[in-house]
């Protein structure tokens, strides 16, 4: 533990770790020192001069180094000038006066200065009501202005820094929190100050503007209404909003969020989600979320939502009752016997997946997870478990990231791993191409696509890298599917698991394997015992298929074809998709915003989300639909209470043992302090009052004997002449069903692409942005050429879910 230092703030004795800033020490002791530029997550800069206080230090005898005593107490010498509490570190015996007349005058002065050119358009400002400047003005300001209104500086009020974030230059108080967040935390230094003096203003110098997937966070920590999102801008007043705890469902990080809702005339008197805000969980996302999590919730509310059950009659989907629809499904499922196949995705909750899996077991069917990635059995065996937290990793821990572009696939992990590396963790980034995380790596390992397993198996033998890895106290490996299909990633997972297992990096906090899954609850599906099937087309042929939360028809023409040849297809989803269009029965499911449940993150943390808006139409929660079908089949599955399903689940799934629904709602005090009354300090991030979740145990952590099955890797793809090796990669913004309905993201999503090295393009005679035809494995499509020299010659990257159905490495013809 760090050395403790005791000081006195406003007469109160405070003991805090050495190195703490006076402003933070005060906060810990419940004493508010007003701040604007200071943010406990950012390096101190002392620029706004809001936190002026009087600081006295004990006088030391030069010869002995002892305190000079005066009337029995150390003699305190105060500095002639006020000092900034946000840049001065605590010292033993220090005396701080935050409310002395001198300090109060200084704070008043700073507020007066800040308001001289401030437009004071609180009545139309998004931040009004949750604005640190408003709050601190009332608490610490002089109450009136001596500045002539006509002499205010005028600057542009509607500046798009990109299409997602807008800037009001008049409201900006030049605290640089946004710039510092981008530089220090996000690592995307794409905004900065231009001009100087009173004309100082924020600009974006990237193309596209504000090119960072973390941009929305700047609107939370901006202490005024200068930065707003195009999503929420002029959308509602903060005091009209209700707050509901939720979990982001877009990726395996599982960021804690708050859904702000209101009932509004604009939406026909309905209660709707107005914005998604980060909710503090220092073990998961701290106080940040990525822009996908912030902006891609619109699919839950659009016209495309399914509102009532439907049955195909005379070739047309027609409205049906729940009873009729579930009965029809049940009859067919029962009839199918062994030919019953369930395909569910990680978009569903643990409870949904548990009921589906139970149904498959009772009905003698198969339960497959809809995933492009394998290896999940291993993350249950040697996955990270209880106590694992990127926030506590530093010197002594090795983090290996292999075959994953974390910035695109799990942005908040990227951010936290970058921070862990800055704290001294040993970061090894292994990939066939350059990724953004390389910049923070202690070592990068470059292999050719297809050599993933070998690269991992050789890691420990590799000189300095191997030594560092083996000598670490802790090691985690995050493996993904960059350039890999199901069997390739499964083989990679096995190699990673073996490396960890052989070297004792399992079964302890901050040790183990993490899958960078495509969906939020893939890990949950693996824990429930779902399996992955490489050849789904074959698995569908002639079978009775129950699909939940997946759209294989849109994703892959081959699967569409296979489903045409299926015996019966029941589809359960929140919205109309290409797959519901071909279904025999359609079952409308509730969106995550409308119900409660739990999700298991990639770090195997089970977290609760809560209902925020009323249910759309007649939609039901997935677990309830499954239960209703089951009942018609004579199978009893809990269908009314999520908590009851969870408790049954916890009793039967080993890794969930000991967890209760209530325990997931527990919270503990967190630092930094954020929340409603502390807006000025941590920003508008929500305090966590509804649960920080709990981590699962892994088999290795339970002391079970673990053996790692060896998985053969798939045969190497060898492109013939005039062919390229095409590999699938994941982009943050794709054309998936949960993103595309959010129109504000369309510019970032763009069109179908094929990414080539300039030399490859040259030899093919194609140019940047040129439309080319791409054909592989019976798939023919169009895509725009994008060039980068960060990949190898002869390789074509094809982003997943962008219109070209690529599932694994293939030989491709580009014309």
């Amino acid at each position, binding site marked *: 533990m760090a050395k403790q230092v005791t000081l006195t703030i406003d007469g109160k004795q405070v003991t805090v770790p050495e190195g703490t800033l006076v402003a933070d020490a005060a906060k810990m002791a419940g004493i508010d020192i007003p701040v604007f530029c200071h943010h406990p997550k950012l390096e*101190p*800069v*002392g*620029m*706004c*001069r*809001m936190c*002026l206080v009087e600081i006295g230090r004990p006088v030391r005898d030069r010869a002995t180094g002892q305190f000079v005593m005066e009337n029995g107490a150390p003699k305190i010498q105060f500095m*002639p*000038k*006020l000092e*900034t509490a946000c*840049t001065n570190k605590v010292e033993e015996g220090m005396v701080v006066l935050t409310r002395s007349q001198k300090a109060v005058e*200084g704070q008043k*002065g*700073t507020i*007066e*200065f*800040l308001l*001289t*050119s401030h437009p004071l358009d609180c009545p139309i400002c998004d931040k009004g009501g949750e604005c640190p400047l408003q709050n601190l003005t009332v608490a610490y300001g002089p109450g009136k202005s*001596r*500045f*002539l209104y006509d*002499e205010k*500086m005028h600057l542009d009020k509607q500046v798009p820094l990109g299409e997602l974030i807008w800037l009001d230059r008049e409201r900006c*108080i*030049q605290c640089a929190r946004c710039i510092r967040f981008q530089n220090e935390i996000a690592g995307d230094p794409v905004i*900065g*100050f231009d*001009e*100087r*003096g*009173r*004309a*100082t203003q924020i600009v974006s110098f990237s193309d596209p503007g504000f090119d960072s997937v973390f941009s929305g966070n700047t609107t939370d920590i901006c202490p005024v209404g200068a930065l707003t999102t195009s999503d929420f801008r002029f959308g509602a007043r903060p005091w009209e909003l209700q707050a509901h705890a939720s979990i982001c469902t877009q990726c395996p990080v599982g960021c804690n969020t708050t859904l702000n809702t209101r009932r509004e005339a604009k939406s026909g008197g309905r209660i709707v989600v107005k914005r998604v805000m980060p909710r503090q969980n220092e073990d998961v996302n701290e106080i940040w979320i990525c822009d996908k999590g912030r902006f891609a919730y619109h699919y839950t509310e659009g016209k495309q939502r399914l509102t009532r059950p439907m049955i195909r009659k005379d070739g047309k989907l027609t409205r049906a009752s729940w009873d009729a629809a579930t009965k029809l499904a049940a009859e067919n499922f029962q009839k199918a016997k062994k030919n019953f196949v369930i395909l569910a995705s990680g978009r569903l909750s643990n409870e949904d997946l548990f009921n589906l899996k139970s149904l498959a077991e009772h009905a003698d069917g198969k339960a497959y997870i809809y995933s492009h990635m394998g290896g999940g059995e291993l993350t249950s065996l040697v996955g990270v478990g209880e106590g694992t937290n990127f926030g506590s990793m530093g010197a002594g821990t090795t983090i290996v990231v292999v075959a994953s572009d974390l910035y695109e696939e799990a942005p908040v992990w990227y951010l936290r791993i970058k921070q862990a590396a800055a704290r001294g963790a040993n970061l090894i980034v292994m990939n066939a191409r350059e990724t953004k995380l390389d910049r923070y790596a202690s070592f990068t390992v470059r292999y050719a696509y297809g050599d993933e397993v070998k690269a991992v198996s050789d890691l420990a033998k590799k000189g300095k890298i191997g030594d560092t890895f083996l000598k670490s106290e802790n090691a985690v490996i995050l493996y993904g599917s960059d350039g890999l299909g199901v069997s390739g990633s499964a083989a990679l997972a096995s190699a990673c698991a073996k490396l960890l297992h052989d070297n004792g990096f399992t079964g302890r906090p901050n040790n183990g394997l993490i899958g960078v899954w495509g969906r939020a609850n893939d890990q949950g599906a693996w824990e429930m015992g779902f399996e992955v099937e490489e050849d789904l087309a074959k698995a569908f042929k002639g079978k009775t298929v129950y699909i939940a939360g997946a759209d294989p028809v849109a994703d892959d023409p081959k699967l569409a074809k296979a489903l045409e040849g299926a015996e019966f297809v029941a589809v359960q989803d929140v919205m109309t998709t290409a797959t519901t269009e071909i279904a025999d029965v359609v079952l409308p499911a509730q969106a995550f915003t409308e119900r409660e449940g739990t999700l298991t993150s990639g770090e195997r943390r089970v977290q609760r989300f809560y209902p925020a808006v009323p249910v759309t139409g007649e939609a039901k929660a997935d677990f309830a639909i499954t239960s209703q079908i089951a009942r018609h089949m004579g199978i009893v599955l809990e269908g009314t209470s999520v908590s009851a399903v969870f408790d049954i689940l916890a009793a039967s799934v080993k890794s969930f043992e000991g967890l209760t629904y209530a325990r997931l709602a527990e919270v503990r005090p967190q630092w930094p302090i954020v929340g409603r009354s502390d807006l000025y300090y941590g920003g508008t991030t929500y305090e966590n009052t509804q649960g920080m979740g709990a981590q699962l145990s892994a088999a290795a952590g339970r002391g079970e004997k673990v053996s790692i099955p060896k998985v053969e890797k798939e045969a190497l793809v060898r492109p013939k002449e005039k062919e390229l090796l095409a590999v699938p990669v994941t982009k943050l913004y794709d054309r998936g069903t949960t993103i595309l309905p959010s129109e504000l993201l369309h510019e970032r999503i763009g069109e179908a692409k094929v990414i080539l090295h300039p030399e490859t393009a040259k030899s093919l005679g194609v140019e940047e942005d040129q439309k080319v035809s791409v054909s592989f494995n019976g798939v023919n499509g169009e895509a725009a050429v994008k060039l980068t020299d960060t990949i190898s010659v002869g390789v074509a990257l094809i982003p997943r879910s962008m219109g070209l159905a690529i599932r694994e490495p293939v030989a491709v013809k580009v014309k």
Partner: protein
Amino acid sequence: MAHILLRHRDIPDIHKLEVYKKNGGFAAFQNAVTRMKPNEVTEVVKNSGLRGRGGAGFPTGMKWSFIDNKNWPHYVVANADESEPGTFKDREIMESNPFQFLEGVAIASYAVGANAAYVYLRGEFWQIAAFLDEKIAEMEAAGYLGKNLFGTDYSLKIYTHLGAGAYICGEETAMLESIEGKRGQPRVRPPFPPSYGLYGKPTIVNNVETLTNVPLILANGAEWYKSMGTADSAGVKIFSLSGRVRKPGNYELPFGTTFRELIYTYGGGVQDSRKVKAIMPAGASSSLILVDDEKVLDTPMDYASVRTLGADLGSASVIVIDDTVSMDWLINKTVHFFRHESCGKCTPCREGTYWMSHLTERIHEGRATRADVDLLLNVAKQMQGKCLCALGEFSTMAVVTGIERFRQDFDKVVKA
């Protein structure tokens, strides 16, 4: 007396390497590198009483001794930004006596263990930068810069770096940011450059004139240097004289020379033989010295004596103001300068200079009331002691002393 800094005035062609060498050039550097330990060099400079000529007057040897020897590498940066209005001494040194300055840089570098030194020049000095580059190349060719100097394992490179037109880049931490390629904005101090400087490494920043003293101090000894000037202000100083005088220019004189001598003996007296009304001893950043009594002119120009007049000697850019000048005009000028140069990083300076500029403009143009003058004084005082760097403080000096010491000038121009 022969010049110590402006030696080109006595020795023609001293900007030529051969001439400089013939006049004892580089002997001090060679002697230091081959015969002295770095801390011995620092000790000599400490004993000489040399204080920084960039404005703050900080003891140079003491600054060098603060270099953090636990953190490497070290850097030396010569502050050749010279942007204080009324200051034009570093320019003359670099243009005409460049080798003595560069030798000073070299000795300082040796003393603090730096193998790289930067000369940071204001953007307008691009010709001087090109000239210094030539001189540096000549020194390299002659074996005074480069690898393994004088057969030792000490190596040194000197680089020039141009600013881009910001007064604030004369402030040492803003200058370091600028060299690093960032916006020229001051850093919070502490930590000070000797522990956290260029690229976060221990760095010594010294003014051009400060460094130009060093070769002769080493050549002639600390005692020799201390024999000039006064007890608290040792040695000689270049006074940049400007304003309403007949012969403006640089005058190298011992500390302790009186204002009267500077203005009348050397500067040829006030234009049109008018009366001195006020003196700004440190350029636009100065407090205004009220010359209501002839005796004020007999004050010796050294750090301590000038302070008794309620002003700082600063960089000793003495601007003489006669009785044709009204202070409302003058502070309107200085405030507009600082408003233009405020980097905008901290609130009181960014907002305060902007606010003050509106007030001084209204006052000067006769659109203000007495209450506005009081408000201006109050705003200036509200800024004092609150700003992140000294620029904000500087911007208030002429305002506060102008109003407090020359109130009648303001009362004359305000509305009833």
